[in-house]
């Protein structure tokens, strides 16, 4: 019996559809990627079970690294200018308009108040957390956070309170945090948020049970 002739099939596959899918995914990822903004001050934040996303608007971020240097940054430039202006006036710094503009444009404030002129003269590329002395907050007498928080509270007077974010390094010592919080408390900022990385709730803990909608798990 003669074998039936099988039609020879081509082994090339049409790649158009696959190509479409690939580029569709590609454009999705490109559009959704938000590159990590280059941080002037690298900080490893601790983890917590908190699942609330850190606010991104109207933020005043106080970061401190493991050496106890404190940095202040604000996302609202107008408010930042106002805060700097308040500090400039109350502390008699005599910053010129150009210096103020430079400070507003810089990503953070990381110099003691007396040396703000110096920071203003630095180009943004040279301003790094590792080389800046940081805002001193090492003891209760010499705590310059007090001036900054006071200026912030002046600027935001009668308005909605800003989101205060505290971002500390894992290895930072507790006293730094204490002095930052002391400044908050003095000017009636009783609520603030600590930036952390998300972590899973341990299984079987009370919070875990709560998050399951109050259902009890038999152990």
């Amino acid at each position, binding site marked *: 019996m003669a074998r039936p002739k099988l039609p020879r099939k081509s082994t*090339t596959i*049409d*790649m*158009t559809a*696959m*190509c479409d899918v*690939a*580029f569709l*995914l*590609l454009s999705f*990822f*490109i559009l*959704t*990627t938000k*590159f*990590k903004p280059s941080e002037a001050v690298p900080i490893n*934040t*601790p*983890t*917590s*079970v*908190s699942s*609330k*996303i*850190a*606010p991104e608007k109207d933020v005043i971020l106080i970061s*401190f690294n493991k050496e106890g240097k404190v940095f202040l940054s604000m996302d609202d430039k107008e408010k930042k200018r106002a805060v700097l202006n308040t500090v400039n006036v109350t502390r008699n710094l005599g910053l010129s308009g150009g210096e103020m503009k430079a400070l507003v444009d810089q990503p953070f404030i990381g110099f003691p108040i007396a040396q703000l002129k110096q920071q203003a003269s630095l180009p943004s590329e040279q301003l790094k957390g590792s080389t800046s002395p940081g805002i001193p907050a090492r003891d209760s007498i010499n705590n310059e956070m007090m001036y900054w928080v006071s200026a912030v509270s002046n600027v935001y007077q009668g308005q909605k309170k800003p989101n205060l*974010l505290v971002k*500390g*390094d*894992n*290895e*930072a*010592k*507790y*006293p*730094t*945090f*204490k002095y930052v*919080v002391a400044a*908050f*408390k003095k000017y*009636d900022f*009783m*609520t*603030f*948020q*600590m*930036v*952390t*990385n*998300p*972590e899973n*709730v*341990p299984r079987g*803990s*009370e*919070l*875990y049970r*709560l998050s399951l909608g109050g259902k009890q798990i038999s152990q």
Partner: protein
Amino acid sequence: MAEMDTSGGGHKKGPGVKKSKKLSTRVDLTPMVDLGFLLITFFIFTTTMSQPTAMQLVMPKDTDNPEEQNKAKESGVLTILLGTNNNVFYYEGQLAPNATNWQSTNFKEIRNVILNKKKSTPESDFVVILKPGETSNYKNLVDILDEMKINVAKRYALVDISPIESILIAKTEGR
């Protein structure tokens, strides 16, 4: 398929007229797909999926007026102290003058301590006092605040450490 009809739209040519050679317009798309997936992998790997979260902390107002201060029943108080190198110390109620109720533990076991205390006291009396020492680090603080959340301890307070307690920590740590 991505192919164009190049056959001149049904217009028949007479016999003897040479047909021009049909050129295929198909392009091999494999390298393009490769490139596409390469870029996809790049973007997947560089995307930071985890957004930072925030932990809210509400501080009470400092008051010198003893009548406004919060009072806690001694029997329901658990004081947790943080030392160097992730050491944790605790005592229940008030610190005994000879420090007999001073206990040391670590972050793994502190959860049981909190839970036990929580079970053995009525809920309205249960208060945790957190006292981070001068040498404790920020991670410890966040961890212990987290522990409050995990164990659903609703009332806790962040209090400065007293000199006696810091001496005790230093002693227990052998410094």
